[in-house]
């Protein structure tokens, strides 16, 4: 029996889905991430299961939805394994296989962001809280050191959770004053333009106002965008050193690389910064799966994927049974079919994400996005015709049947969850 692949699960933090030069963004240069995108299957329609650090990571490493893991915010609940008794990705893998599971970087899966004891994982190095600029280099070095010295006879899962470009939060905090003149010799030509939906209002129940909205000038907003892309470029260097270590040690073809982010970044859409809202800027993320020689390079613009798919996909590639509590699906059958004449996309009509402290749900189907809030607010967007989500169709009679269909999907999803006993059920629309 052949040795199963090594697996590198590599994540960034707060990575807008278009903050890659390979996406056609001229304001950022990410040659290393671009190479990763070009080497594997890049999913355009990839969504965070919950667009905040802790809840998303709890989804990744438990395989459960947020209302099951109970991790609905950046709070310390002890983590999904401690709180539910369900094994982490590392525990399940190592108990059902010969894999070694190793971890470096930011954990934050429902408990402290940085831990040296994680159920099922051997932690080699953590990070520095709120200083991605410095600690990402260390996390990348730790990963590189592991990859260059890894045991060739035993398969491994290396989880590396980089912290950039999350430090944009610190840039925002440090730029609270109105900006009327650009520093550092920058000119307006150096700055990215504001997004099309910059002035489009958000609804308070869906997203909170940008805290800087009242003091920032247009220059502040554009300078913030410029800053963000420098954070992304810093992260790109670390990704490059890690992938290069795989290549130089001859392990690239024998390693499945999964690359994604926990959530996106507002990037001035609706004058919003950061995350925790269900619009694409916050909830849509890069997602690439690569194994040169085994998975053909392919850009997939339509297939819906979610961070909940990572746990089952890793188990499937490792030859390990997928635990019943996983809410995502394995993408291995689809990735395998891409090498044939008959690619077989996953058979699912929608995905669901939890948002903001169990207050909001997002249902994404092939073309539409439905948003429901605990206070009864609903929104509905045609994502093909309106990618910036500026035409709310919830009251459009022409879409009434589709809205009903999405509500029904949400009800079915919620009914199928093993909701944590301490959590109130999500208030489904009564329409």
């Amino acid at each position, binding site marked *: 029996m052949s040795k199963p692949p090594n697996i590198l699960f590599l994540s960034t933090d707060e990575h807008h889905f278009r903050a890659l030069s390979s996406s056609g963004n001229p304001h950022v240069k990410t040659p290393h991430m671009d190479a990763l995108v070009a080497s594997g299957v890049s999913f355009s329609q990839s969504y965070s299961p919950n667009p905040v650090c802790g809840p998303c990571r709890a989804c990744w490493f438990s395989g459960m939805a947020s209302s099951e893991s109970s991790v609905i915010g950046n709070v310390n609940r002890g983590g999904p394994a401690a709180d539910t008794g369900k094994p982490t990705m590392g525990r399940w893998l190592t108990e059902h296989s010969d894999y070694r599971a190793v971890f470096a970087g930011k954990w934050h899966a429902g408990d402290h962001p*940085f831990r*040296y004891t994680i159920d099922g994982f051997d932690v080699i190095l953590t990070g520095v809280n709120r*200083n991605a600029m410095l600690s990402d280099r260390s996390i990348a*070095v730790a990963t590189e050191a592991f990859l260059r010295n890894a045991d060739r006879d035993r398969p491994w899962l290396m989880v590396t959770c980089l912290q950039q470009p999350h*430090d944009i939060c610190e840039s925002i*905090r*440090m730029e609270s004053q109105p900006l009327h003149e650009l520093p550092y010799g920058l000119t307006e030509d150096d700055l990215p333009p504001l997004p099309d939906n910059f002035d489009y209002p958000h609804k308070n129940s869906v997203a909170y106002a940008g805290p800087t909205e009242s003091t920032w000038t247009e220059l502040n907003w554009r300078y913030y965008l410029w800053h963000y892309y420098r954070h992304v470029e810093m992260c790109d*260097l670390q990704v*490059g050193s890690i992938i290069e270590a795989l290549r130089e040690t001859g392990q690239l073809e024998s390693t499945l690389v999964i690359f994604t982010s926990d959530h996106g970044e507002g990037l001035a859409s609706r004058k919003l910064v*950061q995350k925790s809202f269900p619009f694409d800027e916050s909830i849509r993320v890069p997602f690439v799966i690569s194994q040169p020689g085994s998975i053909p390079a392919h850009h997939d613009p339509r297939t819906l994927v979610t961070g909940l798919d990572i746990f089952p996909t890793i188990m499937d590639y490792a030859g390990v049974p997928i635990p019943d509590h996983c809410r995502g699906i394995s993408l291995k059958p689809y990735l395998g079919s891409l090498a044939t004449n008959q690619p077989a996309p996953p058979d699912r009509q929608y995905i669901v994400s939890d948002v903001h402290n169990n207050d909001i749900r997002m249902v994404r189907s092939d073309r539409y996005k439905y948003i429901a809030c605990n206070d009864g607010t609903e929104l509905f967007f045609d994502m093909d015709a309106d990618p910036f989500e500026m035409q709310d169709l919830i009251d459009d009679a022409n879409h009434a049947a589709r809205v009903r269909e999405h509500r029904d999907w949400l009800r079915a999803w919620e009914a199928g969850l093993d909701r944590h006993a301490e959590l109130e059920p999500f208030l489904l629309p009564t329409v």
Partner: protein
Amino acid sequence: MKDLCRPIDQNIRPLTPDVLKRMRAVQPVADVSMRDKQGTTTQSYRIWQSVGGGGRSDNDQSRVIGSLTMTRSPEEGGLFSLRVRQQVLMIDNPDIKYGGVHEIVGDLDCAADGCATPQRWRVEHRIHRHRKRLEALPLVYEGRFEDGALHQTINGRPRQTPIAEAWTADWCLIEAIPRLLIQGDADRSLIVLDRMRDVLPDQRLRPRLEADYVSPHFGPLRCVAQTGHGTLPTDYWINEAGELLFVTSVHQAYIADDRAEAKIQRILDENFIMRFEEQGATSP
């Protein structure tokens, strides 16, 4: 709803030497005037970060997170040697007593030119966990600059990168920037070898005349900024004696401090995170 981005104190940014002083991040700066600039000199920096703007609140985690010590010794043949030791503390964890440290030890031979261009180097990364070095994870970067190319090895695996423009390394900027400023050559572009490993193109140095000021604490200070691909705007603050006292970037600062390594050792020995109010600094 909680405002996640609201700064705590509107009046303490961006970071400047006097802002750092007010935030009690600055110890009395070492007296550098007696140093033998022709002989061996050692300069240490405390790596410090501000979070939440530095005010006292639950959101504030301003503290020491590492140290950098650089010892410069003259050599013959137009070269000088630079011995570097950087430690980054990774002790944010509730579950064990110590945590981890990323230690980097580097030996560089640099040209005595304006950019302090590295000619040969060896950099060793040491990962310590629970006060023990992880011996199974050696990582060594070595290299030399020869015939217009970087000849590098990582754990013995070679690679070569042509480099046609003026260049230096991030550590060497600390040596180079005061030198370039004195030479009137600090307004320039160059390439930077990041952590002695990765080539960062399109780096721009620029004296920030608008930021120069006379500090009541540190005297006249001149500021040179670095911007470029993969670089957050970084300010280098140089005093009248040509000494680099501070490097500030967003919420992070390298602060000249002769006792930096001793403080890191104290943090590790006593296992506590040194916040700004715990550093025993003089009143702001």
